[in-house]
């Protein structure tokens, strides 16, 4: 009988015997740092200013790690690190391709800016609440979701994100926030439970939850069952992303917390839904996506057309911006309906653009609400004379959201239009491409109308609605020192949007390579060490 210490079984095929290379740690460090940092800041929250400085340092290190990771992925293709020494599919893999690494980097940069902005914005900025550790927890969930290579792991990161967002949403616990949180909480929890339901069915059908492994095994599974699973995933992630028929929770909840929290949510949360949709439907279950294509196209067209109409009809400024966010989700989902390389590149670039622009929009709206003391556009007005820089920022961001040329929003829309043109008019003339082409154009026009209407009501008009005086409104408050910090943070993000719009080459090349990797997943599979098994 063999002694317990020596193993007679050959485990070289199943276990990684050597130590993990040092370079691979950049994959897990962002998540680990954010989680540990959240715990540390919770302990340090009584010390004045320590949470802010600590959070800025930790997010800075996370950004450095992700820059390193992105450079690594650009140079060597997708990277993978497996936990607990087991080879996939047994060990849980963190896998980063160009899409995941880019989005994770943009998300952490945006979090850094929001942390600075929050100091200007939060009324209780000096209080000893757990704001900063919750932001780090949210970042941990978001980064984990972008970098994971395993569907069950994705579910866990979704829940980390969800519980952190619950905490941020009710911080301050005004009745308005509790009302919004109930709707947000139930619908998002329902969405993750539906996701879990589809995971159970996936495991029952193919016997694995590793994304690369499912990709290899799904073609031999029952196509009807896989299509059902894909439909459930579409519903679950569609709810997360606030796609058209299941978007009601977003305008009901995103305007209730502090503007900094709204900005963080708008930048990070819904984009995870779109990323998960692209990852699960296009990259992992391409066969089932084809069966669902008419449904997906209808959802995308609905989202593109309904959202800006909602923004036109809205008088609450932050709720109107919420509809902008939903419209952006529609555009980012176009790549799902047209999974060509151009279409996916357009979606990927749109996600980057939306993370930056929607966050900046909510931040600028936070400053507007601060100087007017109002949330309703009917009671605002006359801001143009008092705060000219604010009006310029708002207009620039609205134009960027609509996709007007000099800004970043133009390039993804161009790619998406190109893809739908190639699919519809120039290609086989499928209705999907034609309809998406027109929906994208109408969406841009309607967004422009909604945005400029808001701009006219808030800035151009002399005073609140019904005021007949030609004199400029006197109810506008001056921007304090804290307001200046907030404006500076928005300005920084806006400059980034303009610069990326003027010089999109490197980002575009990256995203196009990432889209190519999704269309042809051989590099992704090779990164997870599954290819040589011959499965």
């Amino acid at each position: 009988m063999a002694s317990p210490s020596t193993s007679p079984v050959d485990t070289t095929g199943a276990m990684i015997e050597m130590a993990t290379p040092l370079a691979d740690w950049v994959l897990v460090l962002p998540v680990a740092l954010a989680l540990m940092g959240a715990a540390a800041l919770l302990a340090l929250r009584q010390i004045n200013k320590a949470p802010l400085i600590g959070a800025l340092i930790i997010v800075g290190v996370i950004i450095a790690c992700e820059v390193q990771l992105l450079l690594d992925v650009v140079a060597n293709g997708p990277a993978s690190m497996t936990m607990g020494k087991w080879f996939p599919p047994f060990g849980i893999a963190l896998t980063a391709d160009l899409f995941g690494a880019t989005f994770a980097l943009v998300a952490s940069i945006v979090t850094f800016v929001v942390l600075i902005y929050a100091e200007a914005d939060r009324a209780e900025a000096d209080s000893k609440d757990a704001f900063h550790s919750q932001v780090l927890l949210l970042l941990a969930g978001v980064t984990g979701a972008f970098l994971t290579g395993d569907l069950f792991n994705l579910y866990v990161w979704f829940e980390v994100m969800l519980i952190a967002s619950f905490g941020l949403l009710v911080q301050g616990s005004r009745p308005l926030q509790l009302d919004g949180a109930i709707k947000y909480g139930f619908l998002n929890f329902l969405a993750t439970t539906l996701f879990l339901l589809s995971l159970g069915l996936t495991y029952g059908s193919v016997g694995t939850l590793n994304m690369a492994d499912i990709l290899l095994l799904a073609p031999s599974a029952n196509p009807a069952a896989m299509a059902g699973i894909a439909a459930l995933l579409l519903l679950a992630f569609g709810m997360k992303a606030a796609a058209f028929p299941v978007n009601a929770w977003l305008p009901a909840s995103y305007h209730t917390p502090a503007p900094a929290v709204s900005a963080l949510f708008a930048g990070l949360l819904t984009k995870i839904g779109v990323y998960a949709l692209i990852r699960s439907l296009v990259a992992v279950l391409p066969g089932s996506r084809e069966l669902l294509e008419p449904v997906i196209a209808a959802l995308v067209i609905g989202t593109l057309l309904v959202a800006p109409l909602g923004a036109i009809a809205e008088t609450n400024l932050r709720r109107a911006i919420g509809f902008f966010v939903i419209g952006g989700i529609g555009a980012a989902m176009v790549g799902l309906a047209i999974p060509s390389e151009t279409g996916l590149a357009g979606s990927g670039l749109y996600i980057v653009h939306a993370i930056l622009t929607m966050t900046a929009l909510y931040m600028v709206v936070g400053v507007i609400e601060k100087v007017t003391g109002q949330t309703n556009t009917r009671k605002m007005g006359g801001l143009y004379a008092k705060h000219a820089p604010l009006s310029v920022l708002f207009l620039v961001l609205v134009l960027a959201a609509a996709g007007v040329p000099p800004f970043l929003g133009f390039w993804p829309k161009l790619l998406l239009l190109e893809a739908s043109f190639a699919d519809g008019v120039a290609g086989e003339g499928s209705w999907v491409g034609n309809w998406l082409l027109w929906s994208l154009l109408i969406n841009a026009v309607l967004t422009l109308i909604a945005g400029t209407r808001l701009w006219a009501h808030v800035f151009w008009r002399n005073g609140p609605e019904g005021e007949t005086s030609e004199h400029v409104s006197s109810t506008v408050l001056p921007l304090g020192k804290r307001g200046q910090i907030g404006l500076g943070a928005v300005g920084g993000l806006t400059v980034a949007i303009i610069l990326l719009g003027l010089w999109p080459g490197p980002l575009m090349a990256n995203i196009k390579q990432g889209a190519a990797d999704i269309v042809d997943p051989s590099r992704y599979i090779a990164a997870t060490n599954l290819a040589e098994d011959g499965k």
Partner: protein
Amino acid sequence: MDYILAGLVGLFIALGVYLLLSRSVIRMLIGMTIFGNGVNLLIFTSGRVTREVAPIVPWGQSVPEGVIANPLPQALILTAIVIGFSMFAFLLVLAFRAYQSLDADNTDTMRLAEPKDAPQPPLSY
């Protein structure tokens, strides 16, 4: 046994959805829990229900003796139960706080975030 479990999963999910359609927040919470338990049961069933024993390796050997039950769904279900329970606990406290400060358990009367009598959108410009 599989058929009984499949029927039970269907029953749980149907019951959960029915309760989630209610206006009362407490009923929705109970519906959410029942729905979640249906899903947990589904994960359990997805590992194939067998009469085999747990995969315990006997002393001195490196592989278990005989046929073993699949341990992975049980690990998945354990994670899902813990997460589901924590979410339930949070939503329960949230519902109680909302009841205290909004004086509402009925989602029809929870209209602070989306006021019912909102004015028409501005017609100028």
